[in-house]
């Protein structure tokens, strides 16, 4: 595999596309084989799992895999006598922090052009330093460090957590190896201990902590009845100059740009240009489960693209015919589902059907047909990169530049040949 990626490691229990392209595949345990937590920031609850059976062979929980890696890295670092590195890096202005007021009038002031003074954390990202000791990654991985005793917080709220930390110590047990820097700290060696630690600290799972967070909010707002705050969100109206420039200060309908999907379509046979949409699949949770024999049997047994009956008739495509779907970004080769359920001018490729089940080669691209993301390309939308302005500020894994990769057109034609290339 060519490209910029030196190493791809996949923790997986399915030999799907990610695993096929990885340099190293580490077998991981499935849901009933491990202790773990599942949730998202959109959920007011947490799902704890408990192992019902052991994983097969050398598969293990993700936590255990990372611990094993930490141990290996620390060992190599120690043997190589790596010193402690000091790293300087930029920290974006954070979501739910004072930094959100960096552009009070919605006007961009660029310090590099002399519009204002360069002030880290106010008119530019903050600059921070971190120490990296690669020989101690393992020591730190298996324990809950003491920094959390200073306090915890999220969304601009803070609360004390030293007592919570002390409660975790007897509950989890401590690190007993005197040679480790984490000696005496609460253990997070096993996945179960990690889950217990998180649940002891989180507002979602520990009512005592939730009360503290609300109490902090009461203090900050001077209000007692906090449900009043849930109303009256100003999130639907923006007054930043970049939003005005893009015509997105309010939620409005913007029609799709009519641009050509590629400069010169192949025109070797009848073709049609369609808008390309990728709704959620009913036969999978993203790519999970799509490749199960039971679910594949319950529909068409492989990748499908849907299009309107009349559009299909224009290019001589019947239901279940192989089609090539292409634009400047890539080629999908898939069987067509021809239906009156779609309006004209649109193609659906439900996501995510992956590309390891029943996918032929394409003569156009010279490689195997792609996935729903093949005809798309990630566009970094400038309005997503505003930063330091209200809720449009960066938050790790929460709010940050996402791609917008729809508003795409594809050219569709009946597949000329269906070749498999099993070499």
């Amino acid at each position, binding site marked *: 595999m060519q490209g910029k990626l030196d190493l791809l490691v996949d923790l997986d229990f399915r030999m799907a596309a990610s695993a096929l392209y990885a340099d190293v595949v580490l077998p991981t345990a499935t849901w009933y084989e491990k202790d773990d937590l599942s949730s998202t920031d959109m959920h007011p609850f947490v799902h704890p799992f408990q192992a019902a059976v052991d994983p097969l062979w050398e598969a293990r929980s993700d936590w255990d895999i990372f611990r094993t890696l930490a141990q290996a890295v620390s060992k190599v670092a120690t043997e190589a006598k790596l010193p402690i590195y000091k790293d300087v890096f930029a920290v974006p202005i954070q979501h739910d922090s004072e930094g959100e007021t960096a552009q009070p009038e919605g006007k961009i002031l660029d310090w590099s052009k002399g519009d204002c003074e360069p002030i880290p954390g106010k008119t530019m990202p903050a600059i921070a330093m971190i120490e990296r000791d690669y020989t101690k990654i393992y020591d730190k991985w298996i324990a809950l460090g003491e920094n959390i005793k200073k306090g915890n917080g999220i969304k601009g709220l803070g609360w004390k957590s030293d007592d919570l930390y002390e409660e975790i110590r007897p509950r989890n047990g401590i690190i007993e190896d005197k040679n480790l820097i984490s000696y005496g700290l609460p253990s997070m060696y096993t996945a179960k201990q990690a889950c217990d630690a998180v649940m002891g600290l989180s507002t979602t799972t520990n009512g005592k902590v939730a009360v503290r967070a609300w109490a902090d909010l009461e203090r900050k707002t001077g209000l007692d009845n906090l449900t009043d705050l849930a109303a009256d969100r100003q999130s639907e109206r923006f007054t930043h100059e970049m939003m005005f420039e893009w015509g997105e200060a309010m939620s409005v309908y913007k029609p799709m740009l009519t641009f050509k999907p590629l400069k010169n379509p192949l025109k070797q046979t009848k073709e049609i240009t369609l808008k390309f949409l990728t709704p959620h699949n009913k036969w999978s949770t993203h790519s999970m489960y799509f490749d199960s024999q039971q679910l594949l*049997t319950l*529909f068409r*047994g492989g990748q499908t693209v*849907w299009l309107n009956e009349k559009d299909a008739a224009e290019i001589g495509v019947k239901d279940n015919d192989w089609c090539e779907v292409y634009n400047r970004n890539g080629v999908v080769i898939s069987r067509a*589902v021809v*239906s*009156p359920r779609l*309006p004209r001018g649109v193609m659906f490729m439900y996501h995510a059907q992956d590309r390891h089940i029943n996918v032929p080669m394409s003569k156009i691209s010279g490689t*195997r047909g792609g996935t729903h993301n093949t005809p798309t390309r990630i566009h970094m939308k400038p309005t997503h990169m505003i930063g330091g302005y209200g809720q449009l500020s960066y938050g790790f894994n929460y709010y940050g530049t996402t791609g917008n990769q729809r508003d795409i057109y594809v050219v569709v034609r009946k597949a000329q040949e269906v070749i*498999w290339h099993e070499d």
Partner: protein
Amino acid sequence: MKIKAQVCMVMNLDKCIGCHTCSITCKNVWTNRPGAEYMYFNNVETKPGVGYPRNWEDQEKWKGGWEVDGSELKLRTGSKLGRILKLFYHPQQPELDDYYEPWTYDYETLITSPRRKHQPVARPRSLITQRRMEIKWGPNWDDDLAGGDSARSDVNLKKIGEEIALEFSDIFMKYLPRNCNHCLNPACVAACPSGAIYKREEDGVVLVSQDICRGWRHCIPSCPYKKVFYNWKTNKAEKCTFCYPRLENGLPSVCTDTCVGRIRYMGILLYDMDAVKAAAKTKDSKEIYANVLGLIKNPNDPEVLESARREGISEAVLNAAKISPVYQIIQGWKLALPLHPEFRTLPMVWYIPPLSPIAKKFEEKVYLPNSEAMRIPVKYLAELFTAGNTQIILQVLQRLLDMRTVMRCKEVGESPPQNLEFDAYEYEKMYKLLALAKYSERIKLPAGVQGKTHEQLRELQGSAGYICPGGFC
């Protein structure tokens, strides 16, 4: 009056999301074995569509179920003599391609592939021939109106007569999950030359004895719903068992238990067996539904209870009948309807028909629609559930709409309209059972048919796994 107990299921199609969990769980439990790969005791169809097996509803073609010939009820597949002559070859036998050729994939290719120029893929292989296969049909090929021609081939659409153009603007669809209906007048039981299929005394579950079955395959074409299947490995017939081992322990069938949309209800009905023949022979098929309602008896009626006890029905079953959610839905509120009553088998899986979005031509003028303004044509629903009687469909849909109106009034603080069929309290009960649909309220089954096992207790105790004198216990 001869009272018998029947386990009955109701499915609320207003809530079916077409997730197919019921099909998958049933398949994983019952039909994931050689000879049974193509079988779906439970399947879910998109209507309009041809279903599984293809066009099963077309009895002109398949000749399933019963017909009235003069004053007699006869199997459509022919008289006893006629069927004896067809003993070794039945012309209406569905073939594998009417269902589909089951397949799997060469998953090992992905794992064992050596370094190659092109990424490996897992390709399909037939589970019958074990050879490479092109996928041309499946058990749910026209899901969500995939393949417009399939929708147009729906025999119910054809019967309506007028042109129902399947255009995007007024497109309609619904899901129809179906399994064996454990009918009161099963055609499969009547057709079997060996008498291998029987309807259980205690709960009406219809089963195929694997010991007696000789593989004559007359049951398969006779079932108008095509819910008896032929196992090509054992050469015997198999079918949905209503998960009777679970029923005997008070647990619902696997499909009911795992239903994500909580659309399924299971409970006991008491019915008068003496009235079954007359109901099946009802001359006008549009009247069959009313006559079936007539033979479903009130579990609180002392005469009914007396007859039931005389027939040996246990107290546990009678208690379950008294709190039966299916009785409430079928007889109390008259919300559920049988599937294709004109087949005359008197199915015991019933369906609450779905409401649907407002049709485009009414969209601007209507706020709360009446049943005629909805997208799914009333005539279409009538073809499915009432042998064409649109009046009944309109009444049922109106009851569902009235329930919504009452609940909306409650929410916004208005007083409900006058002259509704039931009082407000009744509609709230309906809402609770249909909308909130709690597991504990949807399923009311008696547990433990203790009679026989009690007598054999001495023999059975401590005998699992040990050899008793004279052989295995």
